[in-house]
């Protein structure tokens, strides 16, 4: 049994309804903690000038949330940090959980240094100064902000320059400018914040290995998934009325790092050999379509989850080091076989030839071979899908993730 704690969670980007995987992840973690008698409260700054920051429908959350408005006319890092600190201090937590955030996060951590601190990282924001992807010129970047701060600082400035000039502020750029992450002094604050944190939480073992210096306090905690209750098959108007096998790619497929071009390349090669397949992708634009591929358009989350069950193969051809790979879990939970790039978190989730197939990231030939084999072997496809479902039920259900990872972590940090 674990004792009840007051857990303050500070998220610099949270939105509900969710605008990304990090929001969904945090939602389930806080919900799970609350169900286990933890006293949790979420603190979110709402930046009025920037899309996708702190737009929260509080009545839809199963835990209390404090949204702190930040006036765009006096938006300064010290004021934002001070507002958050005052709100958290007033609530008197036992432990502070810092979730999603970019360049402002170290400043918030330093302001809350008096509390036991746990910091969750959802992608590569610790290791990359230009965005959370650590992905440059179409391939994963080898540089590491912790080791090459000045190189990464200049790279970040060069990459963000067009946005700065246009005066278009998105969340990453806003944090970058507010925290003055372009200054040499920022790196010292960044390191200091890492030093004072009691635990750093990442999604996969590769990320943990990149943080060698902090190996004692880095914890690998996967995300989770909920099983869908039994329900009727959804009406999916995008499915074509033919008996072709369905290959599915879900997620933000229009993002080049997700590797849709790789799938199309493999698909084009496959088409020369056979025409018994059709590729469906959750591309936001319904007009995105071709001879062997088409868009599903945007779907509500429940429909999307049920769509996996209607597909024969789910492909995750990520070119970047995918930190987790929620799509893989969702597909496995529907019993659909996963064919994924062997990188980042996907390497941990999918066991090659046991619960799915892995292929070398960026290698369209390997993807072509994997798809060709899966299309030919229906029996193996089904057994891999069933093994995937079993793995999800055993390791990745939210209740398991909370009980196995989060409760012991909170307890150890407070001790």
């Amino acid at each position, binding site marked *: 049994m674990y004792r009840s704690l007051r857990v303050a969670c500070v998220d610099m980007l949270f*939105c509900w*309804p969710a*605008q990304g995987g990090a929001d969904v992840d945090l939602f389930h973690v806080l919900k799970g903690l609350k169900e286990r008698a933890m006293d949790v409260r979420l603190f979110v700054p709402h930046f009025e000038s920037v*899309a*996708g920051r702190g*737009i929260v429908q509080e009545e839809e959350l199963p835990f209390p949330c404090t949204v702190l408005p930040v006036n765009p006319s006096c938006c300064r890092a010290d004021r934002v940090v001070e507002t958050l600190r005052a709100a958290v201090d007033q609530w008197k937590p036992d432990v502070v959980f810092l979730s999603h955030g970019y360049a402002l996060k170290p400043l918030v951590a330093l302001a809350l240094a008096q509390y036991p601190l746990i910091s969750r990282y959802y992608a590569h924001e610790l290791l990359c100064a230009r965005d959370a992807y650590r992905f440059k010129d179409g391939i994963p970047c*080898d*540089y*590491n902000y*912790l*080791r*090459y*701060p*000045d*190189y990464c*600082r*200049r790279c970040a*400035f060069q990459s963000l*320059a067009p946005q*700065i*000039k*246009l*005066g*278009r502020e998105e969340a990453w750029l806003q944090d970058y*400018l507010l925290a003055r992450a*372009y*200054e*040499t002094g920022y790196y010292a604050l960044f*390191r200091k914040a890492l030093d004072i944190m009691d635990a750093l939480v990442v999604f996969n073992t590769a990320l943990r*290995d*990149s*943080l*060698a*210096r902090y190996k004692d306090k880095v914890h690998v905690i996967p995300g989770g998934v909920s099983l869908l209750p039994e329900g009727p098959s959804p*009406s999916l*108007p*995008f499915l074509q009325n033919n008996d072709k096998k369905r290959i599915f790619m879900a997620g933000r497929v*229009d993002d080049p790092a997700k590797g849709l071009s790789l799938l199309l390349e493999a698909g084009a090669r496959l088409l020369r050999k056979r025409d018994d397949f059709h590729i469906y992708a959750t591309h*936001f*634009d*319904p*007009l995105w*379509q071709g001879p062997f591929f*088409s*868009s*599903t*358009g*945007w*779907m*509500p989350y429940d429909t999307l989850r049920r769509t996996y069950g209607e597909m024969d193969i789910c492909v995750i051809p990520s070119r970047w080091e995918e930190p987790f790979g929620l799509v893989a879990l969702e597909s496995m939970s529907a019993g659909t076989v996963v064919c994924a790039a062997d990188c980042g978190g996907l390497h941990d989730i999918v066991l090659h030839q046991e619960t799915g197939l892995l292929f070398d990231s960026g290698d369209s030939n390997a993807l072509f071979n994997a798809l060709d084999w899966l299309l030919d072997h229906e029996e193996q496809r089904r057994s891999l899908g069933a093994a995937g479902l079993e793995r999800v039920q055993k390791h990745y259900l939210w209740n398991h993730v909370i009980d196995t990872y989060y409760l012991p972590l909170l307890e150890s940090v407070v001790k």
Partner: protein
Amino acid sequence: MNETVQKIGLLYSYGPHFMKTLRALRDSHPDAQITVFVPANFPEALLDGMALHIRPILPDSGQRPGIRQGLRLIRAIRGEALDSFVVLFASPRLQLVASLSKAVQSYCYHVDGRVEILRLRLLRALLRPIKNRIIGNLRYFRIWVYVHCTRVNAKRPQEKLSDADPNDDRTTDIRRD
């Protein structure tokens, strides 16, 4: 948007929230007549089951809309006698279309879910990007000066990055070129 609205028009734009907005409009106004203005090659099957009035009158994707097509679109929108007209971006061009739509009220459904009532402020809409650009360029110049005039550990020779272990996070400062 008022829930009693009877006739709603939505203009397609290339954006991640077209289908999402359509779904939100249908859910919030189950009895309203929703007219969607889409490109001619739009796959209408995707909209099955949503009880929509589909008007495929926009030019195909990839074609630049001309003045004649613009006038045709505006005539079509006005012909619907809409109560509400919805666009997906608050750009000057869409603001102009919204103002000519003859709808009682026009709205912009933003990517992040915000809903904004559109009023014709063409001058402001045109000036805002210019203002942002001037401020942005000044900011860029200030940071450029900082970044390029800060000498970083100049005594240290530049390390060949290809020889270094990227996973070793001991700090290595690199002299600027």
